[in-house]
C-alpha cells in the first residue's frame, strides 16, 4: 500500500479540476492505496456541510464528503483557511475534521506521492 498526500486547493465550483481530484482519490483507494487529503485555500469549501446546489448538478463537495467515510481515506481542512472562509466546527461536514499545516507537513514527508490540485 502506498500513501498519497493530496493537496486540494481549488473551490468545488472551479470547473472540472475538482472532479479530477475526486477521480484521483477514488482510483488510488480502489487500487488499495491510502489517501490523506488536505483541503487548503478555497479547497476548504469542500468541508461545508450546508452547500445546496441546483437539482441535477454534480457537486464535487458531496462526492469528497462521501469519500471521507471510506477506510484508508482521511480528509482534513486547514483550520486557518477554513475560518477565513466561514467554515467552522458548527458547519463542517462531520467526516472532515479541521487541522493545521503542521499535520500536512508530516503527511507530505511520510507520503510516497504528493499531488496538488490548484
Amino acid at each position, binding site marked *: 500500500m502506498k500513501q498519497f498526500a493530496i493537496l486540494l486547493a481549488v473551490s468545488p465550483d472551479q470547473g472540472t479540476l475538482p472532479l479530477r481530484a475526486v477521480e484521483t482519490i477514488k482510483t488510488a483507494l480502489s487500487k488499495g492505496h491510502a489517501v490523506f487529503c488536505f483541503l487548503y*485555500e478555497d479547497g476548504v469549501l469542500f468541508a461545508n456541510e450546508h452547500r445546496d446546489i441546483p437539482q441535477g448538478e454534480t457537486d464535487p463537495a458531496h462526492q469528497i464528503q462521501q469519500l471521507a467515510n471510506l477506510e484508508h481515506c482521511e480528509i482534513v481542512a486547514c483550520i486557518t483557511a477554513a475560518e*477565513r472562509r466561514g467554515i467552522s466546527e458548527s458547519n463542517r461536514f462531520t467526516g472532515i475534521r479541521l487541522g493545521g*499545516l503542521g499535520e*500536512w*507537513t508530516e503527511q*507530505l*514527508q511520510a507520503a510516497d506521492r*504528493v499531488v*496538488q490540485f*490548484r
Partner: protein
Amino acid sequence: MKTVTLVIRSGPTAALGTREMVDMALVLATFECPVSVVLQDAGVLWASLPAMPDASPLALSGKLKSLPLYDIESIYVDQTSCEQRGLRLSDQFPGCLASRDTISECLASADVILEA
C-alpha cells in the same frame, strides 16, 4: 526529509491563495523541511515591490523578504519573466535572478513541487 520547491506564478492582483501557499512554505521550513522558492511569470512582480504595511493586501512582499529568516536561502527569480515585464528586483529582495536552466535544475532536484 523531502525537499520542496514552491513556484509562485501569481502576481499581487491574484487571489488570497499565494499568501496561503507562502504561509505553507514557512511552516514547512519551520519543520526543517528544505524549501526553495521560484518566482516566475506574474509571480516576479512580488520581487519588485517595496515592503508594504501589514494591513495591505501587498504585505506578502515583506513576508517574502523574510524567507532567509526561515532558512529559505534558495530563492530564484526568473530572469526571462522579469525581462518580459521590464522589471528590476527590489534592492531588499533576498532572491537572485536565475536563467531558465537554473530553474529547471532546481525543479528537477526537488522531491515535491507546489504551485502558488
